[in-house]
């Protein structure tokens, strides 16, 4: 089963931005690479820092706490990160970004 929920408008997250959104109690971070948007669990798998305080350059997401880095499209670690980033399935319909939040993604 899928549970597609509207996360934000596609224009809400600009180039090199990573922002926090909360949908029915589920907190996510949304970042942009070119035309694509990516939806991650809000908290860094390392020490729970919100990724929305991190750094996004269109290719890499960096947590600002201990500089763990991931490929923002695949979620794979690109450096010191010991745990890959989880990514919610997402799609764009009209000007809305939707994510499948049927199951909350966690690192535990």
């Amino acid at each position, binding site marked *: 089963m899928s549970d597609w929920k509207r996360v934000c408008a596609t224009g809400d997250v600009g180039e090199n931005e990573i922002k926090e959104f909360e949908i029915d109690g589920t907190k996510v971070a949304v970042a942009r690479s070119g035309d694509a948007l990516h939806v991650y669990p809000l908290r860094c798998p390392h*020490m729970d820092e919100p990724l929305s305080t991190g750094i996004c350059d269109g290719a890499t997401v960096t947590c600002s706490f201990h500089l763990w880095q991931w490929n923002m499209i695949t979620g794979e670690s690109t450096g010191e990160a010991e745990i890959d980033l989880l990514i919610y399935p997402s799609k764009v319909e009209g000007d809305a970004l939707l994510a499948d939040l049927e199951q909350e993604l966690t690192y535990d």
Partner: protein
Amino acid sequence: MRIELAARDGEVAFDCDEDNEILLAGLAAGLGLPYECATGTCATCKASLENGDVNDGWADAPARRMLKTEPREILMCQARPKSDCRLAIRGRLGDSGGYVPSWRSGRLASITPLNHDVLQLEIEPDAPMPFDAGQFMLVDVPDVPGYRGWSMATFDPAGDRLVFTVKLMPGGTVSSWLSDGDRAGTGIRLFGPLGKASFRPDRDNADLLCIAGGSGLAPILAILDHALGSGHLKRHRADIFFGVRSYEDLYCVGRLLEIAAAAPERVGLTFAFSETMPGAAERAALPGVAIAEGFVHEIMGQAMAGRFENILAYMAGPPPMVEAAMRLLVMQGKVPPARIRYDKFS
């Protein structure tokens, strides 16, 4: 008491008595426990308490806001055990690397004002405390609760003499203690060395980018001291950026000028003034120094544009400056995180 600690990559156990902080006991046992500030501000040493009970220590530790209550999380740098404890951390146990820290007694040998609000303190430990350039000690000042993390401001490979620079804070407990009579000769306890933002010329074969703000110059001075003394600056560049509000906030300028003069073609020295630019007479006292107006991280970004490749960056200073410089290095400089070194004190 016995402390068992489960990490992502295994389990360790060590002893800690009820008067000791769990983090410090583990580090002194040679374990690579996670930490940065070791003084309750950064939360890097947080752990869940799965079993047992602890005295939480400093109730107002800033990092406490980042702890969960269910399951109960503690700051290992503050917590002292009331019983045997079982803890779990999210990450891996690091490589303890370098010197194993320990407690030592020492004597505050001298106090020297460097400018209107920075003092130089010299502490002689009763046994050598060797350290890597860039590291810090926890200092237990008599009659002042908690410990202060002070970086060594010179490099002394023997560890016989520890020099610190301390900024006086109006109303601060340590500042009040230092101002209250002649404290030279007082006994002071130290725990260290601590900190991962260190420089070792045999390991760190790279050009250095050093960014210091306000009271953060000390570890940068120790790194430069060692870079000069070890011959590193015969082979590598050092670009040094020191940010202050105005000329009167500068200190240790003579030492910076000496370092720059020793390798003038490979050392770039820039002072950034965020509030008041120095006048002509003041500039004349800073020969060879590039003077710039603005925040030090911004000045650094402009001056270093196109030169970030293969540098090793060290940063120390007020947390907002360190954060801004870190973002600039990652975003603009594409500097890999392993080449960005700082100890988080917030």
